[in-house]
């Protein structure tokens, strides 16, 4: 078992989920409530990573964050040398690639909240942000939890984007899925098996827990 890779994997999944919460919740709320006619295009962009090969997403990220890329030039202005082959780099790649797994359930959850409850809160003089915290969030948290779990579980097994953007640096960008690939390449099937089994077990446990929790909520 490559414990260093397991550590990187967990850190990557935790960071990815955290960042997705911060940018995904406002984006999803905007998508759920806007009447903006270009909404469909934004939704398509968010969903795109679901259908694109990870290598394509990784390739563009690599180009964009390189010294000639737009993002890369902005980052060097901010004092960041490079994102490629660093841990923040693979977090960025993982966030982009997991966007649909978080934003789509979040949006569906927000859309399922009865609009009139929001209006009732407004008519009671409650400001918009407070209405969001007191009404929308409590009523949509099962869907938000789904989004969190899906993106966490999915980024545990991230391979293509991480390999493209991060390469294979032990303790920095080498995740479990990459370690498994290496062991298989080295014909070290026993080691690969242990790590693969660990990933399967962990993902299964996380998903089961979520479904159990959701059942409980629905029953109440």
């Amino acid at each position, binding site marked *: 078992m490559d414990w260093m890779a397991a550590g990187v994997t967990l850190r990557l999944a935790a960071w990815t989920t955290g960042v997705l919460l911060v940018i995904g919740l406002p984006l999803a709320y905007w998508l759920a409530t806007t009447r903006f006619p270009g909404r469909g295009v934004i939704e398509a962009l968010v969903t795109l990573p679901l259908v694109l090969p990870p290598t394509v997403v990784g390739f563009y990220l690599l180009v964009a964050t390189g010294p000639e890329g737009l993002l890369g030039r902005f980052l060097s202005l901010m004092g960041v040398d490079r994102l490629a082959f660093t841990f923040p780099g693979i977090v960025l790649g993982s966030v982009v690639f997991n966007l649909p797994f978080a934003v789509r359930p979040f949006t569906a959850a927000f859309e399922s909240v009865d609009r009139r409850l929001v*209006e009732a809160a407004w008519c009671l003089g409650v400001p918009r942000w407070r209405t969001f915290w007191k009404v929308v969030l409590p009523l949509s948290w099962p869907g938000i939890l789904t989004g969190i779990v899906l993106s966490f579980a999915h980024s545990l097994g991230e391979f293509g984007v991480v390999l493209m953007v991060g390469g294979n640096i032990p303790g920095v960008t080498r995740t479990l899925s990459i370690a498994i690939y290496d062991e298989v390449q080295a014909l070290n099937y026993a080691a690969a098996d242990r790590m693969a089994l660990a990933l399967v077990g962990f993902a299964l446990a996380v998903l089961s827990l979520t479904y159990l929790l959701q059942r409980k909520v629905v029953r109440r």
Partner: protein
Amino acid sequence: MTRLEVDIVRRYRTGFAVAAAWSQPVDRFSVTVLFGASGSGKTTLLRCLAGLERPDAGYIRLGGETWYDAATGYHLPPQRRGIGFVFQDYALFPHQTVAQNIAFGLGHLSKAERQRRVEELLALLELEGLADRYPAQLSGGQQQRVALARALAPRPRLLLLDEPLSALDGPTREVLRRKLRRWLATLGIPAVLVTHDWLEASTLGEQVIVLEAGHVLQQGPIEEVFSRPATTQVANIVGMETVVPGEVLHVAGGLAQVAVGSAKLMALAPEAVNSRVYVCIRAEEVTLLAAPPEATSARNRLQGHVVAIESEGALVRVALDVGFPLVALVTPHAREELRLEVGCTVWAVVKATAVHLVPR
């Protein structure tokens, strides 16, 4: 005198437009009824008043304060209008208890004040003992009262009611209709009520605006609109042709004797009897006879004469004077058989259950 002044147009991209204008005092209990079938635009007007929808032209003012003005593009958000909105199916927060629902708009108060206000409302709306229940554990009538309590808690300057009783079963609706008027009158809160139920309108309303397809067909004091509909269209929508003031003489065994004009009528006594009432009779409920009726189960037999006759679609509308103005709807066949002409004498028969008493 502080007044609510409304003159707005709301246009939709489909071409549908709603327009209405009225004014009402807001420094005392007063109710304007927006009356019409579903799709008439009455709920749209209410949502514009709340600030949930933005009109396309006109203005809304309360006292010296502007809520909406198309000329300047000014639109005050719902949070700052100081209104209470009771939604048709209540829109209670399902994840909060009754007490939390009622306290929801009281964030500006201290904890102790908030608790006192919640208890006041629980007592006023007869919700004691339900404070810790969730909305799903309440009956329809209880939910309705919680919705009302929640809207009243922050002491709104104007209460907006969207078909507040329509989701209730008959007996509950009957009881709440009377109580609703008492509560609003006790608190002195002005209200705008959306309904398609004439009984609700006449129990609660002072002025009524009859809407169809986004247009105002008639507006004015409720008894005037209901008893003298300007057009047959209005008469059909309100469905209540005779509305006359009366005085309850006495009540016995659930029946009330009412003096109306120079006639006396028997009616089912409402739960809380005012001595001053409006007597309401639908034209379809009036039977006409050419000769004095013999034994009949109908309690009201009135002699009078025909004042006017006009045909109305497949039916004939006969205006009578039986000691008070009474309208009957009969078929053209009946008109021929009875040889009805203006000035001729007829007897009108009305069952006691068809005479509705509305407190005035």
